[in-house]
């Protein structure tokens, strides 16, 4: 079976190419947007192609003779939405049998309600534009499938981690740089999915009957917290997770965040503050004090200390999660089983950290 991988140089795409090729799962054809992106797949002797995911003609040529296309292109909402029709139509033109689209569990929000399943309603009015783009992309694909010939399987992975994952590398970087932080002590449920388990889901989705037109939530078997995910990374680098502080929390509403951040410094606010009674000025100051850069309060008599990080909106929402998303539909219809345990996934991730030049301590071998 020949499988075209769109987004082959990305985190998931590169592991997909590696695993499919080394395991002999399929004859894999990496497709990248530019020549420089072929550096990764070129470790192997493969039939790599260049095609922009917006370019129907180039895509159709790249998909030629492929039975399956895996759409693993990430990017801004414009990329997520703009590549949907070109990819589907090119797949149709090339005679592809099935398109596997890597969406995200975040279509249900970063903090999904208890009881959420694939059949729960999706909103395009979420606080994070990425979520809305994925919801719209799934909708567009569904409409294309309704009138097209290429089968469609939508996968909704949770927090995909593993070698080359930004969840891993950015936390490791922040530890080394001294600005690592948690949100709510890392107590929130992390709907983790080790990348190899996602690849396994893609493998079974290529041929599972009854999957056409369906969406599937995917996760690891274990229920873990963010602290569980971060602890092995911290330990590998010689840090104790318990000694890492929480980030400053500010309201999750993005509009409110932006307004509050700007409020203290805007000319209007300054003019307003000048005429406010003293008590009102103090109230305004205390309401927004967590947004201030601590460095602004320093004098030459004290040595500067790093400012306390402010949690991103995404992390704020993720940290509130108290629900493990189910993957029983994927098990039932696709035959998906997470083959790699969370413990093994963490050991392999730490192995990658060592490979990637992070100062992994010998005790974590």
């Amino acid at each position, binding site marked *: 079976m020949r499988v075209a991988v769109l987004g082959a140089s990305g985190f998931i795409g590169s592991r997909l190419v*590696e*695993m499919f090729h*080394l*395991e*002999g799962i399929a004859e894999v054809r990496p497709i990248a947007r*530019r*020549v*420089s*992106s*072929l*550096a*990764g*797949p*070129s*470790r*192997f*002797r*493969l039939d*790599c192609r*260049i095609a922009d995911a917006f370019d129907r003609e180039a895509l159709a040529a790249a998909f030629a003779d492929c039975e399956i296309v895996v759409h693993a292109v990430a990017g801004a909402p414009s990329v997520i939405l703009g590549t949907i029709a070109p990819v589907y139509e090119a797949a149709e033109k090339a005679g592809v049998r099935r398109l596997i689209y890597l969406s995200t569990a975040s279509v249900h929000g970063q903090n999904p309600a208890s009881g959420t399943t694939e059949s729960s309603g999706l909103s395009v009015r979420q606080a994070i534009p990425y979520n809305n783009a994925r919801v719209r992309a799934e909708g567009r694909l569904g409409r294309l499938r309704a009138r097209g010939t290429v089968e469609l399987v939508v996968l909704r992975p949770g927090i995909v981690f*593993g*070698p*080359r994952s930004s969840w891993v*590398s950015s936390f490791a970087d922040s530890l080394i740089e001294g600005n690592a932080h948690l949100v709510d002590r890392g107590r929130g449920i992390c709907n983790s999915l080790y990348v*190899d388990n996602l690849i396994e889901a893609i493998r079974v989705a290529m041929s599972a009957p009854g999957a056409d037109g369906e969406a599937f939530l995917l996760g690891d078997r274990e229920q873990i917290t963010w602290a569980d995910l971060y602890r092995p990374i911290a330990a590998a680098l010689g840090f104790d997770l318990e000694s890492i502080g929480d980030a400053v929390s500010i309201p999750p509403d993005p509009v409110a965040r932006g307004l509050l951040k700007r409020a203290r410094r805007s000319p209007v606010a300054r003019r307003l503050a000048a005429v406010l009674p003293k008590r009102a000025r103090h109230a305004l100051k205390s309401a927004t004090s967590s947004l201030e850069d601590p460095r602004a309060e320093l004098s030459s008599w004290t040595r500067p200390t790093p400012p306390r990080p402010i949690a991103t909106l995404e992390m704020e929402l993720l940290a509130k999660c108290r629900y493990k998303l189910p993957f029983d539909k994927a098990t039932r219809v696709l035959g998906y089983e997470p083959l790699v345990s969370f413990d093994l996934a963490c*050991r*392999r*991730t*730490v*192995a*990658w950290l*060592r*490979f*990637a*030049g992070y100062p992994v301590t010998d005790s974590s071998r």
Partner: protein
Amino acid sequence: MTVPSLPTRVALVGCGAVAELSYAPALRVLSAEGLLEVGALVDPNPESSRRLETAFPEARVHRDANALSGGTVDLAIVASPPRFHAEQTIRLLRQGISVLCEKPMAATSIEAESMIAASVAAKRTLAVGLVRRFLPAAQTIRAFLAQGVLGDLQDFHCTEGGRFRWPTRSADYFQRGASNGGVLADIGTHLLDLIVWWLGEPTDVRYEDDAMGGVELNCRAELRFPEGFQGTVRLSRDCDLPSRCFIRGTKGWLLWSIGEPEHLTLHFEGTAWVVSGRLHELPAVSSQPGAGRRVANFEQSFVEQLRNVVASVRGEEQPFVGGQEALAAVRLVEHCYRHRTLIPMGWLNEREEARAETLSREGTAR
């Protein structure tokens, strides 16, 4: 040889990304000084040469370097894909044209030695584009080490890497057979050349990479030196490695961030501080101690490389990095590829590891 009053006549052979992004701006600087003129552009792909025609409107465009002759060209810059370097350089030298060959000089030491022999026979300059030797920080490190500033050397660790973003237009770059190799042949040539220039030739080299039928994305080398110290080189087109050289001796250590040719960081034993400093030229008036002009940045160092080669062609200077100088790095890269093993990738499962080993061995045998 008398100093010619006319500008040195230059041909640019190969009009790809390195020609467009590095050589063309440097050539324009020296052309504006009247030191040289670009008289010919050579590339089999008209689209590539067209990009440079606007920069050098007076240049004649050729599809093949055979069209050049020593009567009309003094210096050819060979910036074609590496697999053409040896053949084109030897032919140009035989045509009476001096050559600045972009790194890597050649795929094998036999090729490199043939290039050097052709240069000697033709009595023409053969210089190699190892621009990092022109960087002020690299030259300062060499001087520090030669003077024993760090004491007896203990170890060194050089890392360089990040997602590959060089705007190459040719997929040949990543094809085994078409390219000389992957990250080792590319940035590794620069780094190994500097190490040999600073520290001498190693006596023992162990090398591993992740090529599994293609060209390597990651590699690691361990080098041992006759004085007893050793060091590592880790390169990647994949992982965001800090691009730096760390060298430790009995008296202290130095750290150079490779992307910062104007900075060095030093620590001396017995102190609790490090010195993180900008390099300056000596003061214009020697009786007034202090820091003179800021030293050349990367781009300006590239111009200095070209200025040196032109001066060599004119008989005014020796080439700073001649063919013989560059030979050690070619030998080292060749040795690494010949004795390569698979780099451990601890995230692969057992089946993948077994297959990766097989593909890696087959790649070495080819």
